[in-house]
């Protein structure tokens, strides 16, 4: 995956195909390179699981797999992990302070 993203054209393809698919021929119009060269870049990205390719009629549509849903999922997952950690620490503090407040207990 790192290799796939190590090229600025490939990074740009991932961005461009985010949300809305683009055909390989349309991508070839955007970059100063041949259709075959763009196709090669797309193939590298496809092997890395960063884009998927779909044939529609005579065209090949490229879509980024780093889509909004997956990203949103990650953002919420991250927030969840953060808050799980916080709640665990809150719980520990409440238990510790309970010990301090009443009588001597073993250190937590």
């Amino acid at each position, binding site marked *: 995956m790192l290799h796939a*993203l190590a090229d600025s054209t490939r990074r740009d393809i991932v961005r461009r195909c985010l949300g809305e698919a683009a055909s390989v021929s349309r991508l070839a119009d955007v970059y100063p390179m041949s259709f075959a060269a763009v196709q090669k870049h797309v193939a590298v990205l496809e092997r890395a699981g960063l884009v998927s390719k779909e044939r529609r009629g005579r065209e090949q549509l490229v879509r980024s797999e780093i889509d909004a849903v997956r990203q949103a999922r990650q953002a919420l997952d991250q*927030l*969840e992990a953060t808050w799980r950690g916080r709640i665990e620490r809150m719980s520990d503090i*409440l238990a510790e302070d309970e010990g301090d407040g009443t009588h001597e207990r073993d250190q937590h």
Partner: protein
Amino acid sequence: MSVTSINKDFEALTLTLVADFEASTDKVWDLWADPRKLERWWGPPTHPATMVDHDLTPGGRVFYYMTSPEGEKFHGLWQFIAVDPPKSLEFVDAFANADGEIDGALPPYVAHLELTAHDGGTRMELRASFDTREQMDQLLGIQMDIGMEQAMSQIDALLAA
């Protein structure tokens, strides 16, 4: 285990988390209202938080920073929308710069906290919602950039090795 339930609504971009504590509502409220206590749980152990401003009133703010093991400081800001001790709290949670201004790099979310007496202890419900789709899209864009940057620096490390 004090986390009772977790719900993630990917459409509404909202995380709802319910936790039960074996302590009074006042004690749980203190975890938020006492800056020294807040410092003990807000940041992960590797990045302890230090409160700079702590004003739990409507329109008030909490301004803090977390310190990384390398000594780097990450600032954050809460801006209070509603404060009703010891029951509820609503605030915008955002990253900030060192001057205490919301940093546009990452979008804030609105946190809504509700404390109720439950089963001899306290139930805490926390709802975190990203404000708008637009902000979420912004977050996604930035995350992608961060992902790319991380990938790039890893490549650099691999090449240097």
